[in-house]
């Protein structure tokens, strides 16, 4: 599989041939592509964090009227820790929710609110249909979208939401499927 360094460096959201292992990886199974949500989709919590930092500064002007210096110190401490925790929680949520394309299957690793783990996988030979959904000005401009992989039978479907370069990822899956089927 080709390696495109430019795309690999897109804030670790589109990594070709990554040096990564996952817990259910089989012997001889090679990871070709690792996908995370596009960094632009994280703008909501980044903006909220900036607003919270500004709010902390503004709040300090008013706190002097109601609390003594010791209490103000403790309030500030808790506020800073809260902002840090909020940022860290979102970073973890982004970093560990990944889509993996290997030589044998397509895997979706999801951690809902960090606490709940869900791993869905589809064998390349069982994939029936792949749909890419990408629309709107922002998605077209930043080249990101969602990939829906449908499988045969009762196997769960795999979804990669808001991933960068969805067409390229689907192309890679198609190539691997062709290889698997020997076309």
């Amino acid at each position, binding site marked *: 599989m080709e390696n495109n360094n430019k795309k690999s460096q897109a804030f670790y959201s589109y990594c070709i041939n990554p*040096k990564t*292992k996952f817990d259910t990886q089989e012997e001889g199974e090679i990871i070709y592509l690792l996908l995370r949500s596009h960094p632009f989709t994280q703008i909501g919590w980044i903006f909220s964090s900036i607003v919270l930092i500004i709010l902390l500064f503004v709040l300090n002007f008013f706190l002097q009227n109601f609390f003594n210096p010791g209490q103000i110190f403790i309030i500030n401490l*808790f506020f800073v820790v809260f902002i840090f925790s909020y940022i860290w929680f979102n970073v973890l949520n982004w970093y560990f929710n990944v889509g993996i394309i290997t030589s044998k299957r397509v895997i979706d690793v999801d951690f809902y609110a960090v606490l709940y*783990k869900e791993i869905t996988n589809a064998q390349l030979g069982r994939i029936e249909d792949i749909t890419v959904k990408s629309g709107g000005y922002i998605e077209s401009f930043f080249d990101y979208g969602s990939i829906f992989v449908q499988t045969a039978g009762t196997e769960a479907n795999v979804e990669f939401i808001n991933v960068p370069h969805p067409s390229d990822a689907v192309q890679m899956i198609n190539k691997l499927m062709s290889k698997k089927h020997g076309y």
Partner: protein
Amino acid sequence: MDIKDIIFKIIVGLSAVFYYLYSLVISKQVKIMNKTLEDEHNRLILLVSTLQVTVALIILIIALLSIFIF
């Protein structure tokens, strides 16, 4: 000590305890996540999460000191 100070200390104490418990849960979960997906950033992630637990413990100590001593 007036009622405002007592309420403040109770809120601070409870918040510190909850934050410490939260940081422990996140730290435990980070270990599970690192096991699920191993890459070159695992050490850094573990370090930050350990730092969070340490900070939470320091805050808990400060909160307890502010309740019982100051």
